[in-house]
């Protein structure tokens, strides 16, 4: 990272919301807190605000680094900064940890006011629509009536799409990358394996592990391992690991033989050390339930009839989790509604996770599209 186009040192902020939020499930949160970061300056016309929505394991820390933790660089730092494709000299960029998250916003780790104990398993299931409703309250408080753009990859892209439906007049551009209009049976199946890994961990205690002073580390580790497989492409795994052996020979044991095993264990361990199991369960459910066409007899074009935003949709050739065909579903539903859309199918070897990389062509597309947004 060249320091001259980094947003530099950043400080997360918190915002308290006291009006109850009725969730899609019917449950109610009496109030909640969101943790967020901003980069750049809101202009006088308040026309340059961009919301960046995070995916499954992401957070409000989109760009820059912390003074007390300089290694902790924002998860989309390659995209967001002065002179970068999402240019903070032009835009006022907002990153927010979603409701139910485990990076500081109200979630299963928060203390429940009624009981004085952590919510744990009692935290209600929140959906993509609930996240967007909560983000809208943050927008109100930041003085943002209309986002110049809402940007997201994967589950983040679903939030951008949801913004265009829930608040058609508050979003000018929806940037939906490596996403899908709903999960396939195969997508849900992978999520269910991840959930069962967590739920069947003896340390899970029905979600009340905090009260037992333990963490379902084994379950989280497995969940992340299975998830990680779906983020990478077969060809990339073959290139990176192939059948490389850890010890140069077959050990005829269940310890690490192949390098890919070592990599997955490393990723699993790293994740299980900090991510909350209840949040993970809830995030995967939010993915499973996301389906704007559900209330429209499965007809996506009817669901998108409300939208007014212009769209930038992009997919990656080797993404088999949300394959290009899934993005095309969104594109053609937009076309049926005569909405403006740009669709790019990017050649990138890195599978689903391509959206986080700084592939030259990918970033050139985003730079060009974002550059044309009037503020």
């Amino acid at each position, binding site marked *: 990272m060249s320091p001259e186009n980094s947003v530099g040192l950043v400080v997360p902020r918190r915002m308290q919301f006291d009006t109850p939020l009725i969730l899609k499930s019917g449950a109610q949160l009496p109030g909640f807190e969101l943790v967020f970061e901003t980069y750049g300056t809101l202009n006088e016309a308040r026309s340059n605000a961009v919301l960046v929505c995070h995916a499954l394991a992401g957070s409000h820390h989109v760009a820059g680094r912390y003074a007390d933790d300089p290694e902790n660089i924002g998860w989309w730092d390659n995209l967001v900064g002065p002179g970068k494709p999402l240019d903070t000299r032009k835009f006022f960029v907002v990153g927010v940890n979603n409701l139910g998250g485990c990076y500081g916003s109200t979630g299963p780790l928060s203390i429940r006011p009624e009981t004085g104990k952590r919510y744990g398993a009692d935290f209600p299931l929140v959906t993509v629509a609930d996240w967007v409703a909560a983000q809208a309250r943050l927008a109100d408080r930041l003085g943002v009536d209309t986002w110049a753009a809402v940007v997201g990859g994967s589950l983040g892209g679903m939030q951008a799409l949801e913004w265009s439906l829930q608040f058609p007049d508050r979003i000018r551009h929806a940037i939906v990358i490596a996403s899908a209009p709903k999960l396939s049976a195969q997508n849900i199946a992978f999520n269910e394996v991840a959930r069962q890994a967590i739920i069947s961990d003896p340390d899970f205690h029905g979600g009340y592990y905090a009260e037992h002073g333990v963490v379902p580390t084994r379950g989280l580790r497995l969940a992340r391992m299975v998830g990680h497989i779906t983020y990478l492409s077969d060809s990339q795994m073959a290139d990176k690991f192939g059948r490389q052996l850890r010890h140069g020979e077959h050990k005829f044991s269940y310890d690490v033989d192949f390098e890919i095993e070592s990599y997955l264990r490393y990723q699993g361990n790293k994740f299980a050390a900090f991510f909350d199991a209840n949040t993970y369960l809830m995030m995967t459910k939010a993915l499973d339930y996301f389906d704007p066409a559900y209330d429209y007899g499965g007809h996506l074009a009817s669901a998108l009839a409300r939208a007014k935003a212009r769209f930038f949709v992009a997919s990656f050739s080797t993404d088999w989790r949300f394959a290009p065909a899934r993005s095309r579903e969104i594109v053609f539903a937009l076309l049926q509604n005569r909405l403006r859309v740009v669709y790019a199918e990017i050649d990138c070897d890195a599978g689903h996770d391509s959206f986080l990389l700084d592939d030259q062509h990918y970033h050139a597309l985003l730079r*060009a599209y974002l550059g044309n947004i009037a503020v």
Partner: protein
Amino acid sequence: MTEHERRARAEQRERFDFAVIANWLSPGERVLDLGCGDGRLLRYLNETRDVTGYGVEIDHGSVLGCIRNGVDVIQMDIECGLLGFEDRSFDHVVISQALQTMRATERILTEMLRVADEAVVSFPNFAYRANRVAIAAGHMPVSEDLPYDWFDTPNVRFFTIVDFEGLCARLEIEIRERLAFDEAGQEVADDPNLNGSLAFYRLGRKS
């Protein structure tokens, strides 16, 4: 000719091609442009005729060009047809000097007239006099409208005005209007298959 002159002439030629197509469109129309390149035609049509619509393009660099030009582009391969585009959802489907770069000629023509009631097609006429002369001299033609050496041409279909009209007849496509131009951009009335370098068609379905 200097590089500057060459470019100026190419641009002049391009504006002339665009104007021919623009003349066949009504103001404010909805247009789909197949093989739209960097979106220049759509931008021209938008600026001159208030036309809206989308380009379709497979090439990565061209898609980037479209975005830079502020043109809405859908990146996809149309060799398999226009799957996803609804019947009669556009006023015109245009394919400007790109049909010869695609293999599925019949499918593309049929699909164009599914998605719109009228199609506009332009292509280089392989039977143009200068091209015949080149072949007679033993060489593949390189000309204003066929500007590529045989070993690096994007073109995969080489056909003439007569051939194209034969295919239209076989596909029951109605030719509503035809214009042919020589390399100097002069309209050709006499024996267009010999004297026309570039041909433009307005096509519809035979009812």
